[in-house]
């Protein structure tokens, strides 16, 4: 599903713990450390061109939210909400690995994200 060609400008060097699933050349040990995340936009929140990501288990929800916010170029005043299991907001300090254990299915964790309206 994910495709390098779709997002040529993104700089992944800043986030080694989050990578395209397609570019993963992982050995067995890497696969255990990362989980597959599928990001789905809610409402009129911009859709990320790349939806499937490999994320280190230890990465926090807050860190992932920041990554998505940067990716979508959100204003500082805009808040990103992340939901798991459709209707539950995990704590910002929650590790994605724990979420995967609880809510993962078919080898991936589905996370919905939503941007709050900017003020004005």
């Amino acid at each position, binding site marked *: 599903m994910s495709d390098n060609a779709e997002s040529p400008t993104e700089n992944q060097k800043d986030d080694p713990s989050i990578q395209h699933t397609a570019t993963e050349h992982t050995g067995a040990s890497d696969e255990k450390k990362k989980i597959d995340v599928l990001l789905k936009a*809610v409402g009129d929140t911009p859709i990320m061109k790349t939806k499937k990501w490999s994320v280190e288990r230890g990465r926090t929800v807050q860190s992932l939210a920041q990554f998505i916010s940067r990716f979508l170029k959100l204003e500082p005043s805009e808040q990103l909400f992340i939901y*798991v299991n*459709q209707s*539950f*907001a995990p704590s910002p300090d929650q590790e994605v690995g724990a979420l995967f254990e609880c809510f993962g299915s078919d080898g991936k964790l589905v996370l919905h994200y939503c941007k709050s309206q900017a003020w004005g």
Partner: protein
Amino acid sequence: MMAGERNPASCHLDERTFRLCCQLFLQHSETIQDGWSWEQIKGTDEGFIKKTVLIPVKASVLHKQHECSMQDENTVTDDIQANVEDETAGVQAVCEIHAVLRYEYHILYSCSYQIPVLYFRASTLDGRPLALEEVWSNVHPNYRQRLQQGPWDTLTQQEHPLLGQPFFMLHPCRTEEFMKPALDLAQAENKRVNYIVTWLSVVGPVVGLDVPLSYSTEVSAPD
């Protein structure tokens, strides 16, 4: 869909559904000993759910009360374990690093907004109530910047509607903003949610209240 009418555009909750959601929420809290309880106001049929937690914080949060300019910021670590083991730190340093605050959270139903509202108060263990600035420094960094940029006061001091004592309140006007996506999403997937669980999972972490993941899977929506 929850009991009671709700069209897709509305994120409101009627009082009966509020109570039912709370009941289901409390059942799970008891199961996992999460500490929530129902408080009934004597002589009325009004009530709310509440929980008290002890939160360890960095001394810098209470810097106004604990004057110790000698304490270097770099030596104050999040690793409480290390400080306990450091015998040479002395009692004074341990007391400053080990500040523990008592937070009491109340979830009330707001008739005017027709949604739940989170009230809380915070104090030191010796009973000193925290000031608003101190409470702000405990707001999770994930939210702090944005909440402080809001055109109105998100975190305000209010009189508790049922107890009449000063509490902090997370202003309910933003509720729709984060409830709507979750409710619409659930509706689209033909899934019923417990409003309190969804709502608390978002507002709780803002003010230091953790909502374990099991609430998401174990608490059902009211019929």
